[in-house]
């Protein structure tokens, strides 16, 4: 591993792969578990090469049962391991839901802190890849509603590299959401010598004055594009990458909204009871007198994820976001 300050251009997939490798090198208790994570390196190749280098005992191809994967990971965590579970696609996390919500989330509490659950559950999430049913879901709100879990979403290669390591280092269970359609989309410069920001923080990724746009995971890019487009028309949007969904890091959000007076939140998950509803409820509570218009939400519609030929209509895009910005400004 280099110790200098050389940087390299990496994709999100690469950042995650490097981060996992680093975590495994740093701590022999870190294990990777999931379907096809071994020789294949996962269907998205995020664990590529890890089984070859760390062996079958640390990179474990599991029988095809998500409850089994998470349930055995609970046992391994009780034995002192730090399992990193890969769920192959967002839509396949539900068979493990009981283990996650009743066991992973509650073990620390139930045991009065004696049985920590240092587990990471990685979920490639979101749509836009032209897939069949169940491959484009955004299940984050359901986990964020569950005390005992922490939920984060990365949005770019550099965060991918750092956040996965921070999540693995966390003694709390972390649902780790990866925007699958960004895996190979963009490259960024990684400087391994940098000190990353703490995991459970949101981040202002673009400064602006007229309205605040909140996003996470795949919609950060959309929000940034919207801000660029708006700028050409003289509207200055501030963009915040929430990064952490539970806990929410509302400080920077409140600060921003108090300045701009307007907020729009966007995510791919259904609007109804999505993260946006909680963020909205908190903003209206804490920034009541600063708000010049209602907080607006631009999300996936309240329908099941549609057939992929019309998924671009389901997904919040630049236009719908700008439309909401306009509505907010014109309110």
């Amino acid at each position, binding site marked *: 591993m280099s110790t200098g300050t050389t940087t390299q251009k990496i994709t999100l997939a690469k950042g995650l792969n490097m981060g996992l490798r680093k975590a495994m090198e740093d701590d022999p208790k870190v294990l990777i578990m999931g*379907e*096809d994570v*071994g*020789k*294949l*390196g996962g*269907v998205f190749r995020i664990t590529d090469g890890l089984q070859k280098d760390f062996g*079958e*005992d640390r990179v474990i*191809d*599991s*029988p*095809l*049962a998500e*409850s*089994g994967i998470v349930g055995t990971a609970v046992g391994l965590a009780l034995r002192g391991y730090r399992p990193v579970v890969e769920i192959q696609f967002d*839509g*396949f996390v*539900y*068979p493990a839901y009981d283990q996650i919500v009743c066991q992973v989330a509650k073990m620390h509490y139930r045991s009065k802190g004696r049985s920590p659950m240092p587990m990471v559950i990685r979920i490639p999430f979101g749509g836009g890849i*032209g*897939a*069949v*049913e*169940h*491959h484009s879901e955004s299940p984050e709100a359901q986990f964020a509603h569950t005390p005992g879990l922490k939920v984060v979403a990365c949005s770019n290669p550099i965060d991918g590299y750092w956040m996965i390591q921070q999540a693995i280092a966390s003694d709390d269970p972390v649902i780790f959401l990866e925007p699958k359609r960004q895996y190979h989309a963009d490259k960024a410069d990684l400087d391994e010598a940098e000190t990353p920001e703490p995991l459970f923080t949101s981040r202002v990724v673009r400064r602006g004055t007229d309205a605040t746009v909140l996003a996470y995971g795949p919609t950060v890019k959309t929000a940034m594009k919207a801000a660029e487009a708006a700028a050409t028309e003289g509207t200055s949007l501030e963009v915040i990458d929430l990064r952490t969904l539970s806990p929410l890091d509302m400080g920077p959000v409140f600060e921003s909204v108090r300045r701009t007076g307007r907020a729009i939140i966007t995510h791919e998950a259904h609007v*109804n009871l999505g993260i946006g509803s909680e963020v909205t409820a908190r903003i209206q509570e804490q920034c009541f007198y600063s708000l010049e218009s209602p907080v607006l939400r631009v999300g996936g*519609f*309240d*329908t*099941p994820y*549609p*057939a*992929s*030929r*019309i*998924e671009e*209509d*389901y997904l919040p895009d630049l*236009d*719908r976001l700008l*439309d909401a910005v306009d509505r907010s400004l014109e309110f």
Partner: protein
Amino acid sequence: MPDFGPDLVEVFGPSQADGGPELIQLLTPEGERVHHPEFDLDFSAEQLRGFYRDMVLTRRIDTEATALQRHGELGIWAQLLGQEAAQIGAGRALRTQDYVFPTYREHGVAYCRGVDPLNLLGLFRGVDHGAWDPKDFNFGLYTIVIGAQALHATGYAMGIQRDGAVGTGDTERDAAVIAHFGDGASSQGDVNEAFIFAASYNAPVVFFCQNNQWAISEPIERQTRIPLYQRALGFGFPGVRVDGNDVLATYAVTQAALNRAREGSGPTLVEAYTYRMGAHTTTDDPTRYRLSDDVEHWKLKDPIARLEVYLRRNGLVDDGFIDALKQEADELGHHLREGVKALPDPQPLDMFAHVYAEETEELRVQREGYAAYLETFEGAQR
């Protein structure tokens, strides 16, 4: 740490790729008709030609779809190459009143049930999540969450019991359900719970597992250390392993299992021992995890080739038949190629249709809001 892995290979490896002694076979890979004390059947020439035709056409559907995916017409395709006999054998053993719960790979069974393969292609193209009415064909929609449908099948079979359509002796009435799933799916809680419910209620369901040796990159020995059909023994109903590349044996065994179900004797697990010759789907790259030797070995067991040898050797087909079939396949290919491009794309507002039997007020508002929003673009490029 102790060595707890490698000995698995002894149980199932390429060396045992013939399925072991318990494998039921009526037609050898060399095209020889062999007999079985329990599961033998007399097949008419017409039946045999029918099987052959079915398999050839099914393979054609698969290769056309694979090609169409390569040409960008489908988002993805789940290939069945090598599993034609398993699917046709099972599909042809069904009666009209029986009901099928497929996975995402049951193109051959769909074909047997009369579903236009264009509908299958549409799903993988992304025009919808399922275009046929299950009730028209007694063929459920493709299920992608692996194993989930095994429970649906069991419940449906419980419905058949409640309708008094089991064990009456009336062959037009007595019905059974077949639940398809893969070797990988056999590890899901849902499949095992289906075994429990089916056994408990003695439901008329046949669990038909195509053990194609692979669950994406994971070999069968990750899911079980003993032959998979033996799983059923732990639940108190019979399991049987049939050569899934032998359409005759698969037909005979599935028919026997369906008959058991229809007559009220309860569930059976049929393990169709076969091989996924292609990739898991068109996005998969099997060279990363399996040996080409293994694939070569299985090529010798091709389900279509062996029946063709048998048919030709016994003079049951002539070149005329083969040519006519080739032409039929070509027409089918044409139908698919032209048809897929002509499949109407869904319209944006279709997204809101059928969320509920009775649309909610809030969804109506959302739908109308989006419609109004779309109208603001009026012809403009979004």
